[in-house]
């Protein structure tokens, strides 16, 4: 058996139509590319994090991988099969193998269903109700550390952390191999964030899951992800092993994101990379390197030519004038 990764995404593109006929006639662009040619792969049992600010396309990318969003181009290979041209009925068995968690812990649970019905739903959808549904619900509640009587609660009676646990339980109900988690800690207090990340880490180890995490929170990435990618305007600007990127980011945007995280230490002296300008609109992508409008290190070349992806060690980035070239070189030499 070949060691093909669990998930391989290549040159994936997602487009949204904008405006109506009028906009088209008046010469405005009629579509934007929210995901503009993204490639990565995820090995079994590993965690990959997509990082980016709002509007970077990370959620759209996750939904495209999950088939909730139609991709305009590229390929999604999962367990050795190409998902891009799958029909709705082809997708159904895939959904047992790949589940998704959504941002809002409470809002992603159907408001009028009890926790019991919510947890039994995956079995009902896939015609597995023959199994003792109640026993399965109890098993799942135990798995995520919730008391049995939570089965009779409704989503609005749960705290954010509890609702998130129910979401995790539902995601692992059918023994998937991949979980896509969109901002698993959004809206949760720090004391609860840890609980959720611990739970995800545990389940990954116990069930041999792979995780695809979407987040804007770099601390979360560091605590959970083996490798990561930084998205800007629908493209990856840097991708690699998490520890390597935290130690020595190559792309100025990655460095800016890392430096933009205020640390809870009043004596810390900050060496910030400030990004004063606004994020450009997807309707008017900048020329050359798309980050040059905000990059503090931009030179003439950056506005003219788009940089090609460069590899240093395990990291891949797109920048004409990368930071930390020496560390990068050292890594490359070591590898």
């Amino acid at each position, binding site marked *: 058996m070949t060691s093909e990764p669990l998930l391989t995404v290549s040159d994936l593109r997602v487009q949204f139509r904008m405006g109506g006929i009028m906009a088209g006639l008046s010469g405005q662009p009629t579509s934007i590319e929210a995901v503009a040619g993204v490639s990565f792969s995820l090995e079994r049992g590993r965690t990959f994090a997509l990082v980016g600010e709002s509007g970077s396309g990370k959620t759209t990318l996750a939904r495209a991988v999950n088939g909730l969003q139609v991709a305009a181009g590229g390929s999604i290979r999962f367990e050795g099969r190409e998902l891009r041209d799958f029909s709705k009925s082809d997708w159904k068995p895939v959904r047992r193998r790949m589940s998704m968690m959504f941002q809002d812990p409470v809002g992603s649970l159907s408001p009028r269903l009890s926790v019991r019905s919510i947890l039994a739903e995956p079995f009902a959808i896939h015609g597995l109700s023959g199994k003792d549904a109640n026993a399965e619900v109890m098993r799942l509640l135990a798995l995520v550390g919730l008391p049995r009587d939570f089965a009779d609660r409704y989503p609005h009676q749960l705290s*954010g952390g509890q609702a998130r646990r129910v979401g995790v339980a539902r995601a692992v109900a059918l023994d998937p191999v991949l979980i896509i988690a969109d901002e698993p800690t959004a809206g949760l207090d*720090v004391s609860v964030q840890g609980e959720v990340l611990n739970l995800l*880490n545990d389940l990954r180890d116990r069930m041999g899951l792979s995780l695809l995490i979407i987040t804007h929170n*770099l601390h979360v990435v*560091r605590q959970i992800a083996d490798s990561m990618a930084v998205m800007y305007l629908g493209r990856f600007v840097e991708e690699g092993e998490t520890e390597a990127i935290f130690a020595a980011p190559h792309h100025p945007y990655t460095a800016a994101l890392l430096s933009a995280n205020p640390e*809870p230490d009043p004596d810390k002296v900050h060496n910030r990379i400030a990004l004063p300008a606004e994020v450009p609109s997807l309707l008017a992508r900048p020329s050359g390197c798309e980050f040059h409008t905000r990059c503090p290190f931009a030179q003439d070349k950056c506005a003219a030519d788009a940089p090609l992806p460069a590899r240093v060690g395990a990291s891949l980035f797109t920048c004409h004038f990368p930071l930390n070239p020496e560390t990068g070189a050292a890594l490359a030499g070591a590898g």
Partner: protein
Amino acid sequence: MTVLDVRDLSVDFATEDGALQALKKVELTVPKNRIVGVVGESGCGKSTLINAILGLLADNGSVTSGRILFEEGQDLAHLDGAAMRALRGRKIATVFQDPMGALNPVLSVGRQMRDIQYRSGLSRREKDTRSVAMLRKVRIPDPEKRLAQFPHEFSGGMKQRIAIAMALMMEPSLLIADEPTTALDATLEVTIIELLKELQQQIGCSVLFISHHLGVIAELCDEMIVMYAGEVVERGTTRDIFHNARHPYTRKLLACDPARLSHRAARLPTIPGTLPDLRRRPAGCVFQARCEIADGVCSTMPPDAVVTEGHVARCWHTSEALAVEATA
């Protein structure tokens, strides 16, 4: 000299299931020209505290004890509507969390900035000139043109800058900032924090800065208070609290912040348990149910124990607390 001095403040909300004590004996001092942070998790009473200070409590809320002394000794807790209104906007300005909703959607930015200068007695043109100058200070590009625009034509970060410009336009002595950066991306968050710091020094006002983000508090604030379930469990200088926290809750909260971990941890620290029901507060310490060093004495109300000058923790066991870490 202090700008704001909150003493023994308690606030109740009437609910269908009885009175809910949202704030209990809150103590807070904002000295002149200083930035004071308020930190706490959801349900800790941060928003109620601001609303009480601004006199904007919901109809079912009321101040049941305490005083909110402002500057020369006006008690905001017992000020009538007109006197309170005279302070708001002029002496006490506010920046709210939600930049999308904070501006009136059907009035131009210029009109709204003009309206808040109604006490100045300036002509329309003079008001606009001041608005432009203020927008320039918060680094809105092309401010003359942008006065005529409506809020939906600005990005979230710009709207928050406009909100700050409006708040500081009348050079208030106290700026209350209620999670002003929570809705923004990290790169915008730091620019707003730096802007606030810079303008605070320029104008020389005091700031009460509310946030759940420990890093932001550490970076911006001189002093801070930590709130839990409507009580101030610890207060002191930011350095005191981050380096020498003496309340078990503060210690656990600090330990939970993944930003404090420089390396990947096998297990992240957490605080097991949940907030107490504020309608049925426990007797004594509000944190005892989740505290591993709690003992019999904790079922009586703990004192505000002084650790060092200006550093106070509401706990019976401030020395033992040094051993407390969050549960991993």
